[in-house]
């Protein structure tokens, strides 16, 4: 079955507001990565976490392996933040095999 449940599937924000994306894992994961798929289709690395939290500009991510979830917070959303966001975690036995969430399609509106 699906090992990564990502929510929401779609999100609409006004400029300047914020929200959070979440990924729940059905098993204990050793790490999590967050990506944004840009308009050209490229996956942009946002965060890699083995534990705790990381912050980069208006983005902040947290990962709790024991509680089996990760979040991505966006604050002061800008138009250029629009895109599809994915979380991914390594399958058991290999750090190099990632299982992806279904993605969150974010639209930031003026």
């Amino acid at each position: 079955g699906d090992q990564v449940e990502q929510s929401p599937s779609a999100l609409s924000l006004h400029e300047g507001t914020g929200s959070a994306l979440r990924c729940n894992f059905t098993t204990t994961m050793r790490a999590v990565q967050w990506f944004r798929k840009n308009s050209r289709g490229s996956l942009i690395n946002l965060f890699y976490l083995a534990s705790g939290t990381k912050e980069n500009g208006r983005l902040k991510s947290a990962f709790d392996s024991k509680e089996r979830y990760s979040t991505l917070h966006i604050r002061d959303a800008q138009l250029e933040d629009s895109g599809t966001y994915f979380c991914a975690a390594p399958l058991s036995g290999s750090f190099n095999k990632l299982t992806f969430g279904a993605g969150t399609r974010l639209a930031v509106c003026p």
Partner: protein
Amino acid sequence: GALVYQYPRRTICKSGTSMRMECQAVGFQATSVAWYRQSPQKTFELIALSTVNSAIKYEQNFTQEKFPISHPNLSFSSMTVLNAYLEDRGLYLCGAGTDYAEQFFGPGTRLTVL
């Protein structure tokens, strides 16, 4: 920084023909390369993982006979989609990295099958 290039970015092939796609890691030595496919309306699905000094491991529903992969050195990998049909269309992503570290992805090769 770490970059991953993929070529071609887009390709169109006739049903039943084959096409080859390439993946190049720049700025780091990729001890592993994983190939994924994102089919329409789906998330990314792992096809196979190629690790230096190990055999290429294919996931369920994917075979070497259909998706042969070459990984001759730490910076380059190629995969061929043999005998492509409609169900093979989608975005093929190459993810490269080292053990116990984040993976970096190329922009993908979008395959259209006519």
